């Protein structure tokens, strides 16, 4: 069977039937991007490898329970990897370990020096997403990056920015909606 051309929905159905070829195809398709987001968040390649291993192990064990009508398989995988990476990031913070992102020059955004957002945006690979983020008003860019790429909770963001929690929630909500609409208008799905 040629797995390479099969859509995600068919691959996950095959994985639920314990088809290792399908799992391998899914690994080849997504391991790189998932690993990249984990490394970007926690800056530790060994830990990122553990996260990727857990994500694909979960995929193998839980594919049978996946409900296609609830969303895309890729979204599920990215969500699992992101949530695990955020957990590790928060665990490290609780244990007093410093956040040490990969030393790739300019991917670390310091919330207290938000003027660095241009550096961050320049480092994004996807032009469409870069443009969509840069089109957002600065306060919305800020909370989205602090949420997604720095793993901060809404309360932590409110504390750091010295703004009410409700303001953070509404900035996150409106920022993500605008981002989604912008990507949609650019044909990114």
């Amino acid at each position, binding site marked *: 069977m040629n797995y390479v051309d099969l859509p995600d929905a068919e691959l996950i*159905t095959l994985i*639920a*039937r*314990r088809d*290792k070829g399908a*799992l*391998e195809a899914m*690994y080849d398709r997504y*391991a*790189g*991007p*998932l*690993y*990249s987001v984990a*490394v*970007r968040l926690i800056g530790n*390649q060994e830990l990122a*490898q553990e996260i*990727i*291993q857990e994500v*694909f*192990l979960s995929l*193998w*064990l839980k594919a*049978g*329970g996946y409900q296609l009508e*609830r*969303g*895309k398989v890729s*979204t599920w995988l*990215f*969500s699992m990897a*992101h*949530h695990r990476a*955020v957990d590790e990031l928060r665990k490290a913070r609780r244990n007093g370990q410093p956040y040490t992102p*990969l030393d790739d020059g300019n*991917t670390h955004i310091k919330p207290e020096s938000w003027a660095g957002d241009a550096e961050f945006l320049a480092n*994004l*690979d*996807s032009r469409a*997403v870069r443009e969509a*983020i840069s089109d957002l008003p600065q306060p919305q860019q800020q909370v*989205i990056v602090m*949420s*997604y*790429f720095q793993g*901060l*909770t*809404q*309360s932590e*963001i409110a504390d750091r920015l010295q703004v009410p929690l409700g303001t953070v*929630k509404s900035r*996150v*909500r409106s920022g*993500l909606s605008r*981002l*989604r609409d912008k*990507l949609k208008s650019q044909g*990114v*799905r």
Partner: protein
Amino acid sequence: MRDLTCGEAQLLSASWALGSIDKDEEFSLRRHLDSCLTCQRAESADSDAAAMLATSVPQVTPPAALKGRLFRLIDTLERERVSRPSTLLPPRRPRRPFVFRPAFAAALGALALVGILGGWGMMVQNRLANVEQLHKELSVVTTRLDDSNQNRVRLMETSARLNLLEEKHLRLADGLRDQRLALYVASLPASVAKTLDPTSPRSRGWGMFLGSPNGNVAIMLAVGLQQLPEGKVYQVWLTDEFGYHNNAGTFTVDSDGFGQLFMRMFRYISYFKKMGVSIEPEGGSAHPTTGFVLGGDI
């Protein structure tokens, strides 16, 4: 705990998708999403947008060895699953005779549910304790290994076993989570319990369906079903008024004949009129390929 409005839920679903929601609000949001298709769709769109952010980071290639490690671990897991399916299960308890009288089904059903959930919780806790004990013992062994080549190999084997135990630990944690979900479904204000009876004299066991007609989540508990051979699973079907059997998921039963399935349907539960359980190949079927072993009106 206060129920969220759709406006509040959609405000929070963006934070949920970005991973920044605070824990205390996460449960309220999940509870709302379980019963609101509109907000489920909004949440799905938010998660898609968040996933786009993930694809935008600079690409780093994972080491080639990672793939080999993953598939070796999966091979080990599969061998473990086939050769020792219930290594960590506690000793089997003697089976007690079970008398089921349809006339008292409704009253017995409520009592049985409490008993099942309690017993289930204790069983899962016991198994969890066993795994944790084994985990501790293996950790002690691991710390005694030195750096010699021979011991390095043993360390790798121990590490693989620890991974397996951790995976079992996760599965048991899943069991606890399912138990919480069952309690959650039971706590919904309009939840109803319906019994599922054997459909032929050769069938055995019985089941209970629990769900709110106004929501799209429900749980099915089955007791006394026979364990199926390798490659077979029980599959649950919800039948609508047009007689179409809608797949609600698959489940297996443990050595006590107990199984459960948490169902999240694409329509409100009130849309479905009957429920049935058939035996299907692993992975499930698109339509029932065998007669129902349990069935009933919902």
